């Protein structure tokens, strides 16, 4: 039973991975691409690692998988936030369909 549940977790993770990579190719802007890849790829990889844990149980492999899940959940949003902030500061414009840019307003308020 737990083998089938683990396989289903791995299949769901691969689906999220390929959807995130299609978003990386398809969306028009740095920030949209970052949004798609961060959510989908983090959830997909964490799902693959959870499937590994369910398949292998409380062995060395399973505990290392849980450790990797905790590490990814902790660090991936931080890296995505830093990349978005860095590319905004380096002068990448938003897509022309985007309507609001709070960070730009805040920076102009600080200057004036």
């Amino acid at each position: 039973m737990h083998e089938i549940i683990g396989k289903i977790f791995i299949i769901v993770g691969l689906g999220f991975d390929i959807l995130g990579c299609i978003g990386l190719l398809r969306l028009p802007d740095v920030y949209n691409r970052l949004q798609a890849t961060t959510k989908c790829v983090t959830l997909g990889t964490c799902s693959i690692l959870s499937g590994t844990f369910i398949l292998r149980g409380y062995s060395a492999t399973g505990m290392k998988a849980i450790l990797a899940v905790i590490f990814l959940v902790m660090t991936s949003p931080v890296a995505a936030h830093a990349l978005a902030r860095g590319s905004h500061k380096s002068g990448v414009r938003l897509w022309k369909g985007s309507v609001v840019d709070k960070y730009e307003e805040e920076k102009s308020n600080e200057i004036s």
Partner: protein
Amino acid sequence: MRNKANRKNWLIIFLCVVIAVLGIISYPDLPSLLNWQSSFLSRCFFILMICFLMCLIRIMAGPTAGDRAVAMDTLGILIVGFCAILSISTGRDWYLDIAIAWALQSFIGALALAKYLEGKGFDE
């Protein structure tokens, strides 16, 4: 000009999806998709290879430096999942050590790229 670039982008996506769907459907007995030893892991590797190919296309064709940094971060996270599936298929647990080390390296690399994009020094 923009229309032509848009059409080329759609063509790449369409080719990738067609290759993935053919790889899944062309297997002779579809109920053995959940069969463990024979072909499930090779199909997982196939789908992850398509994801790597998409990330490499974005690294090659990204208009700005931020796109390339985002694609590098995504590639690092995908390799962690690849190491997990590899540890299942071979039954050795030290592939997950490689996965944890690669996640750490990808995180530090993404932070360094972000600081580089901001245009400031590393010792701020």
